């Protein structure tokens, strides 16, 4: 850890909310998101000297958060991989409705989130980064370790899949 304490506090100030929401959308349960967020920041503090380019800061912290969330999901469900197309997403959908910090009042919002959770892991990650965090495709590529073209394709496939899911379940 070579960062000045003031710099780490700036990182916390800047990213702790967006990273929490990114992690929450991946792991679903509030208590789990809280744990993964803590673990993410520990990784950020410990590997801060590996961040060479400040312009890549956001992609770097999101990459750590994504990896931590995937590692957590893998330890719990043993199926999650950014390369896997056959992720068993029904567990995540069940978790969504079971978590006390899920608002089930708006049926359409809930259905939309179920449609997002039904996506394969890579598509879901790309969709969340683009749709909720407005991240450009080249930055998404840096987070997921793919190309900007692949990120664009994944986003459009995900959008179509969500649309189909909602129309089929409405």
């Amino acid at each position, binding site marked *: 850890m070579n960062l000045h304490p003031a710099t780490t506090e700036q990182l916390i100030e800047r990213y702790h909310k967006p990273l929490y929401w990114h992690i929450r959308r991946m792991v679903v349960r509030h208590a789990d998101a809280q744990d993964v967020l*803590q673990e993410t920041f520990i990784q950020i503090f410990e590997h801060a000297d590996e961040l060479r380019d400040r312009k890549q800061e956001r992609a770097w912290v999101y990459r750590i958060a994504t990896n931590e969330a995937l590692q957590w999901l893998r330890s719990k469900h043993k199926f999650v991989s950014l390369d896997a197309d056959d992720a068993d997403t029904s567990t995540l959908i069940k978790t969504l409705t079971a978590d006390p910090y899920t608002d089930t009042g708006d049926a359409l919002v809930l259905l939309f989130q179920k449609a997002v959770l039904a996506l394969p892991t890579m598509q879901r990650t790309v969709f969340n980064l683009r749709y909720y965090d407005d991240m450009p495709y080249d930055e998404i590529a840096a987070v997921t370790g793919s190309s900007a073209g692949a990120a664009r394709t994944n986003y459009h496939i995900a959008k179509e899949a969500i649309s189909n899911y909602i129309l089929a379940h409405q």
Partner: protein
Amino acid sequence: MKQKQIFDFSRVGKRTPYHVPESFFDKSRKKLVRKSRALSKAQSQTASAPQSQTAPARPLRPWVRYAGIAAGVLVLFSVAGLWHFARHESPVEAVYTSEGDLYDYSWEEFAEADIFLDEMDW
């Protein structure tokens, strides 16, 4: 031609069903700041601590090394010798019967037969 139906994403926008307990972000930020300060403090203490005085391992004296090699060679030869004798079969002596048939006797059998012949009253 039937037009493909597409869901209007603006109906949901960026709303999600997720919510957090009250003052969660404030508590979480404070906890992270405490953790980062503790880590930073621990690291600066480690950096200022004197380096450990562990002496490098001394090389072995020459006679210890040679004795070790000799012992190794001795053990190797002993094992090879034991293995050789364990596998070695007793020599076979060709003995012909009065009918001209060939009997194969091992040394032990031959020695036994010899004793037996000695004891016989010719």
